[in-house]
């Protein structure tokens, strides 16, 4: 990557009806994306998520769920730092989530996003919110961020939407 911004990356959100609100977030990796919310306890990407983006850790309560295209909400990842590679591989193969919302500054996940952006130009947005807002955002149907031009560490907004399921176009 040479620092140029690709505005075509990420989803476009067109909610019909329902309510929207914006939560203040710290941008940990710039990008743009929207998706149905999947709120889960911490998971190890290495060994816990397979190459198709499915949670395969049999001890994890969301085992069997797919993270592909979702707004993945989790306080932090856990386990091996090889999780960076697993996430990068998912992003590059089009099997990544649409966006990541965390409440702790997770360097393992962000390293994977930075590497994927370097080799593919695909920018997976990662935002950090307070623990309270993580719970709130995790309870909404849809989440979206648009922070393609925001520097890492600066503030942005996480949009939460509660609306009929068919009302989003990604």
């Amino acid at each position, binding site marked *: 990557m040479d620092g140029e911004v690709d505005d075509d990356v990420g989803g476009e959100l067109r909610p019909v009806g329902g309510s929207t609100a914006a939560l203040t977030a710290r941008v940990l990796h710039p990008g743009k994306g929207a998706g149905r919310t999947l709120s889960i306890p911490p998971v190890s990407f290495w060994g816990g998520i397979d190459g198709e983006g499915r949670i395969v850790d049999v001890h994890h309560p969301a085992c069997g769920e797919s993270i592909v295209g979702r707004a993945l909400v989790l306080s932090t990842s856990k386990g091996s730092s090889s999780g960076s590679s697993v996430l990068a591989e998912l992003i*590059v193969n089009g099997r990544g989530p649409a966006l990541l919302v965390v409440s702790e500054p997770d360097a393992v996940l962000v390293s994977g996003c930075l590497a994927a952006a370097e080799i593919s130009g695909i920018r997976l947005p990662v935002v950090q919110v307070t623990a309270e807002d993580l719970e709130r955002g995790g309870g909404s149907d849809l989440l979206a961020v648009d922070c393609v031009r925001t520097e890492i560490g600066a503030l942005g907004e996480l949009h939460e939407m509660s609306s009929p399921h068919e009302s989003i176009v990604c």
Partner: protein
Amino acid sequence: MRLPMEPSPPLRLTAEQEAQLSGDCGEAQAMAMRMVTGVARVKGATRLVAVESVHIDSCLFHGRSGIDFVQRLVDAGAQCRVPTTTNVGSVNLRHPELPARSPEETRDGTELMRLYGRLGVAQTWTCAPYQLPERPRFGTQIAWAESNAVVFANSVLGARTDRYGDFLDVCAAISGCAPYAGLHRDENRRATHIIDVSAVPLAGEHVYPLLGYLAGQIAGTGVPVVTGLEDPGSVTGDQDLGRGTAGSGVGAMRPTEDDLKAFGAAAASSGGVALFHIEGVTPECAELEAVCDPERTPVTVVGPADVARAQDELTHAEADAIVDAVCLGTPHASLAQLRRIAALLRSHGREPRLPVWVNTGRFTADALAADHPDDHATLRDAGVRIVTDTCTYLLPRLHDDWSVVMTDSAKWAHYGPGNLGVRVVFASLEQCLEQAVSGGR
């Protein structure tokens, strides 16, 4: 009352770091600095720290993106700015006939290692770089990956590294710097958990990995400090045979570096421990008060029942299971451990009936052959298979007809079942070799 989300503090770069980031020093430096400064902002660092050495783990194959990433660096002419070593890869380059996960993984894993070899690294291919002759001194800032190497460097050597992982490790090597955050900073090296082991009889060297396993469960990603080791003395770098006669307990003997290696590797596997202290043993902890306020730090008392439970949790096979093989050397065996295996085999006077596999570093394997030819011959004549460059728990096809493996490593016991689908019996090194000689049940 809601605490608002704050932006990261400003990250201040030196003029040289700015030049690296801007591309004035070439695209390889710019790419590396984009990664390092990006993670620095995530961690809230206000500056970078120059590092004196790097240990790279990204050379272990996890997917095509790992190859694409390092290929970009190689194409841009990247070279490491600081002395850099390489962790294990997916393939034993010295013995490529040992099968990796699949032919594709053998091919891709080899390609990845060869690409890393072009960055000006020392091709050590070991998870125990602290066993090499050159190692970080107390207080030096380094950027190491591989959880057991990180915890050893921080705890036993007193060097300062945060937990580095894929992509960031090689970028620290190329840029020569890392985010000044986490365990690079003194204030984050204080103990968060006191673990009192005074009720544990240290009967046998395998108690150290079991205590490490428990310490990881107790402290998670925190910093445990162990107190109550009976008359620990100070840690010894003494790498002779150490233990005295076979069957004698650890007793009041000082923990060796191999004991501390086993403790740290276990604690990093069962929890996420990147730094531990042991009162009177590790270099930052002459006494408890040096690393915590004992009145305000939670204390967990570990007793013999906890140690027995740890041993049970690391043993997945039934008591009467037939053992198919013995795997030693995770993390990579030291020269002292290789010599001890040879001495124990000689004491039995019989060849093992079970396959015995030992992982070690190239340097250590070469040192054994050159400096201790009798021990080298003992291992060779006994049919002991030495694996360098990788680890037996990364070679699943090695184990096609094994269902039960005995090991002296809590780390192997932790990862072996998931990686290989085998069941594990955790035991001391002596018990492992007794089993190997007597065979079967």
